[in-house]
């Protein structure tokens, strides 16, 4: 009992500190984020992992400004994003492929394509093989070419890295780069673009594929039939393995979800998208 009294004696002090910090926390800003200030609530985002860097950055910005807002960002893959938003488990479901008309109809999805992305083949920086033909790529991923020496590289086994079934990146890569050819079951399986990049970064003999947003100088992007996977080549249409990045909602939305989607198309939002290595698309 005595203990309780002692604790309750601290309450006014606590209150004061709380209020003070609240005053310090609310500063007025006038820019694209202004729409969030004063709002509160929770926004759940999940799905495509190519979207994550952009989503995380924006979520951080918003939460820092409007501390009553909570935004959670999860991965899981495009398939999961579409499914979860459809079932109402999240507010925004991201996908790295266009949801099928079946999915759109079933759940009444509304699609927002806010960026253009390519799927690039990546190898370790130290790998001398940095250019492949499409047919070579298909042979590699089907497991028919097993050793880098067959491609003019070192005499080491090739480590294939692939993604799981829920991945939109996998689907696009499989369709457009492999032309629906086999992917060997000996391939390592990772569950996100980030994991793909770090797998290739750490294994000098690995080959994988990832969103352009994840390509930087830590890994080597492989030119496909002589065309490097760069933003410029995607924009010009020279690089073939291209896809849109979608954020999907169930039906038309309002409030926080709407503000978030709008921010993706705002000037600041498009800046962030570009900075993360993707090509922003106007609404």
């Amino acid at each position, binding site marked *: 009992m005595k203990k309780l009294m002692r604790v309750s004696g601290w309450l006014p002090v606590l209150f004061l500190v709380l209020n003070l*910090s609240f005053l*310090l*926390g609310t500063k007025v800003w006038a820019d694209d984020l202004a729409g969030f200030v004063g709002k509160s609530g929770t926004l759940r985002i999940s799905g495509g992992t190519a979207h994550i860097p952009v989503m995380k950055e924006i979520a*951080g910005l918003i*939460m*820092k400004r409007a501390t009553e807002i909570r*935004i959670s960002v*999860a991965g899981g893959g495009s398939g999961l994003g579409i499914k979860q938003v459809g079932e109402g488990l999240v507010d925004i479901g991201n996908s790295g492929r266009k949801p099928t008309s079946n999915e759109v109809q079933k759940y009444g999805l509304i699609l927002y394509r806010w960026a253009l992305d390519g799927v690039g083949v990546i190898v370790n920086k130290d790998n001398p093989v940095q250019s492949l033909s499409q047919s070579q790529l298909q042979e590699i991923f089907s497991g028919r070419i097993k050793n880098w020496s067959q491609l003019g590289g070192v005499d080491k086994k090739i480590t294939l890295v692939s993604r799981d079934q829920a991945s939109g990146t996998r689907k696009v890569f499989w369709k457009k780069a492999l032309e629906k050819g086999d992917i060997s079951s000996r391939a390592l399986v990772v569950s996100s673009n*980030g994991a793909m990049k770090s797998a290739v970064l750490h294994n000098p003999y690995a080959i994988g594929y990832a969103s352009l947003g994840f390509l930087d100088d830590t890994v080597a992007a492989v030119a496909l039939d002589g065309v490097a996977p760069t933003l410029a080549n995607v924009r010009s249409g020279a690089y073939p393995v291209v896809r849109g990045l979608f954020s999907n909602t169930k039906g038309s939305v309002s409030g926080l979800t709407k503000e978030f989607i709008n921010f993706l198309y705002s000037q600041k939002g498009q800046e962030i998208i570009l900075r993360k290595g993707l090509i922003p698309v106007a609404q």
Partner: protein
Amino acid sequence: MNRVYDCLLYFSAGICGLLLLGAVAGLTGFLLWHGLPVLGLELFFGSLKIGEIVDVIFLQQVVVDGLWPAVVGTCLLVLMALSTALPLGLGAGIYLAEYAGGKAKTLFSLTFDLLAGVPSIVIGLFGFSLTLYLHRQFSSLTPCLLISGLSLALLVLPYLVRTTQTALEDLPDSLRLTAAALGAEKSATIILVLLPQALPGIFSGVVLAIGRAAEDTAVIMLTGVVATAGIPRSLFDNYEALPFYIFYTASQFSDQHELQQGFGAALVLLIICVLLFTGAGLIRKKASYRLLYHSK
């Protein structure tokens, strides 16, 4: 010839010891080497200044590039799991030790043994599918802190039951007889005599349970933990947690800074868990002494 065998025995046992110690030293050394340099306020609060950190603690400021939300998430998880499992575990433990008898006792304790053996990912799967099922009934429920906490409670429940039960059963019967001879009812015997005596044993079970709840990754991975969420405002929010942060970073860090954060997080979790496990014995001794001899 015998001498040769003897030497062989000493030699191979010695090798085993060295291998084990070497592995542990390698593991902790590796984490310390990479983790110690980043251990500091920045690891937890990112680029925030000291003044802002106070705001963080009162939820007026958000940490975006630090471990703080994960630490808070893990603490909340442990709290949730324990506050659910402790009363249940104690109750079931007392029942099994003092009331149940015959077939019921065998059957019940067998079931708790079964539960103790169920892999954590299967418990996570259970929590996840239960959520899916409930979501179809009440659309507002999604994987969240509440579900994770309850699933973890399920994970640690058998530890609590078993430690309570054995702590009570290990007490000498003379204790029960003495209490009975003094005219105490069974319930009074349990509360006033047996439980205080069994407390050290029960306590070690609680510590074990905290450790399990804090380190488990498989359960929460399926039931609501996410990479970025901030501090949860309610039981129905997503959350971050230390072990998941470590797993996430290990597989998909994008730069050196994130990797460093991962090492920092691993070191923090290691320190927490090891302190919990080794400190438990110490506190246990002290607690039982205070309880039994230092009454005020």
